[in-house]
């Protein structure tokens, strides 16, 4: 049983984001990038499922420009068997990414797509659900526990009200939340081994996906900044200050 894992290259989560002064976007040149943290979790889950014998092959997929190869190498070091680079230098919005991933699912006849619940750059939180919708298959988003048993998966989901459990038939799309697992630390031999694993390059066109007009970003601005407040020295001072403002 094959599993696809989508991995996206994003600005590293430790980077302090700077919005360009002309409002055209955020500074990404010369800034550290890494695999979307939620995709690392999805990748780790795939590897654990393979170790448990639930899946037999892991295929990492990315959609984007040439530098996406670094992210695929990371996925291969985690334990993906091979990778597909859907190369495109254009603007890949979630619906386009989803169409490409849906096509890849079909082409590979994969039984499960594991992805991050959101990418930490655009924070869209759409792609997984869109893939499931396009393929008319089950989705289990925001997963904090995944169990695969034959052609079914039982998934515990982190929802606003608590923890929800769904049972889904495979094929299905599962999106990873933070507490699904703790991704392993990559070791040098794995990183070396990953260099020899195969990466297939295809275009969106090869998969029958065309770039449709999407959302247009007309402006990017920093959030309104909070002015620095006051430091108080004692509990009494704090209580008085809050009372003076009518807050307590």
């Amino acid at each position, binding site marked *: 049983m094959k599993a696809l894992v989508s991995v996206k290259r994003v600005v590293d989560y430790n980077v302090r984001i700077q919005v360009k002064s002309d409002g055209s976007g955020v500074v990404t040149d010369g800034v550290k990038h890494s695999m979307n943290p939620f995709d690392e979790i999805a990748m780790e889950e795939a590897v654990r499922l393979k170790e448990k014998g639930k899946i037999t092959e892991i295929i990492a997929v990315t959609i984007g420009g040439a530098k996406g190869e670094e992210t695929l190498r990371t996925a291969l070091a985690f334990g993906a068997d091979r990778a597909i680079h859907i190369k495109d230098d254009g603007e890949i919005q979630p619906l386009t990414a989803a169409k490409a991933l849906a096509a890849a699912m079909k082409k590979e006849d994969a039984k499960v797509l594991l992805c991050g619940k959101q990418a930490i750059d655009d924070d869209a939180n759409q792609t997984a659900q869109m893939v499931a919708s396009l393929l008319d298959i089950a989705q289990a988003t925001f997963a904090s526990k995944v169990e695969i048993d034959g052609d079914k998966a039982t998934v515990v989901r982190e929802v*606003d009200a608590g923890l929800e459990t*769904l049972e889904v038939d495979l094929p299905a799309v599962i999106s990873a939340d933070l507490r699904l697992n703790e991704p392993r630390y990559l070791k040098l031999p794995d990183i070396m081994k990953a260099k020899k694993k195969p990466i297939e390059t295809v275009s969106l066109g090869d998969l029958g996906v065309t770039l449709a007009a999407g959302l247009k970003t007309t402006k990017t601005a920093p959030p309104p900044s909070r002015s620095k407040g006051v*430091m108080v020295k004692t509990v009494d001072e704090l209580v008085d200050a809050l009372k003076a403002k009518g807050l307590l």
Partner: protein
Amino acid sequence: MSKILIIAEHAEGKLNAGVSKTVAAAKGIGGDIHIAVLAADPAGVAAEAAKLDGVAKVITVANPANANPVAAVLAPQIVELAKDGYSHVLFPGGTFGKDLAPRVAAKLDVHQVSDIMAVHSATSFDRPTYAGNAITTVEAPAGIIVATVRLASFTAVGAGNSAAVEAATVSATLPSHTRYVKLEAQKSERPDLQSAARVVSGGRALGSSENFKVVYDFADKIGAGVGASRAAVDSGYVPNDMQVGQTGKIIAPELYFAVGISGAIQHLAGIKDARTIVAINKDPEAPIFEVADFGLVGDLFQVLPEMTSKL
């Protein structure tokens, strides 16, 4: 003119408070506002929805299959409803809407706008990216607009209306590949995190679930809801539904206390709209002090009990 369909989130026969805030966003767009209630027995929820100011009509779809919020089951029905000339389909932006909206958007073959935080026109919206560190203004292309609404950015509308309630039947075939098993909900007597006027959150510094008692005691004293940082949740001190931040809940209380929380950008993403932020931390260099309106350097295990006793 716009014709807007809002999908009602509800549980145990009660309308979710986020729906009212979604109506506020719809009023910003302007036009006819309808609310759809998909449920096993929608009457009670529909009656609540009909009271919301600005709503012209409530549409109910009764079906035993709608007893639980399963996106794969709800989406085909919403797609059918949406085809009745709607220009916008809006969802409250909690996990319910986040799970469901993209499933609807993809079926309609349109891109989705996630987390609307401001409305400029019927097609132009602000939304947060990079954990709220860059606000982008997006223009949606022609066609139906599917969007989720960032609830912390909008104020609930009044509830003095009495809109018409109409039953609808939809013929969509519903999938059987997804089965709802159960929900383990945390029952709490405290105010709901997302609507509380006051919230006290504890971080890794609390050290254990027993120690969280100092946070609960203080919160109860001031009638506050209780939240937590990811570190506190991951360490098992409190359940996941208490997490505040980029990947937890986005909240906008009048008063927020961050106690033993360092102030990572992912945590701050959840509290950007808090009116007043108070930070209590023993490290004077903690980044939380850069955004706090009031900061107190000290040991929380001394400060909190003292606050509790002095109020």
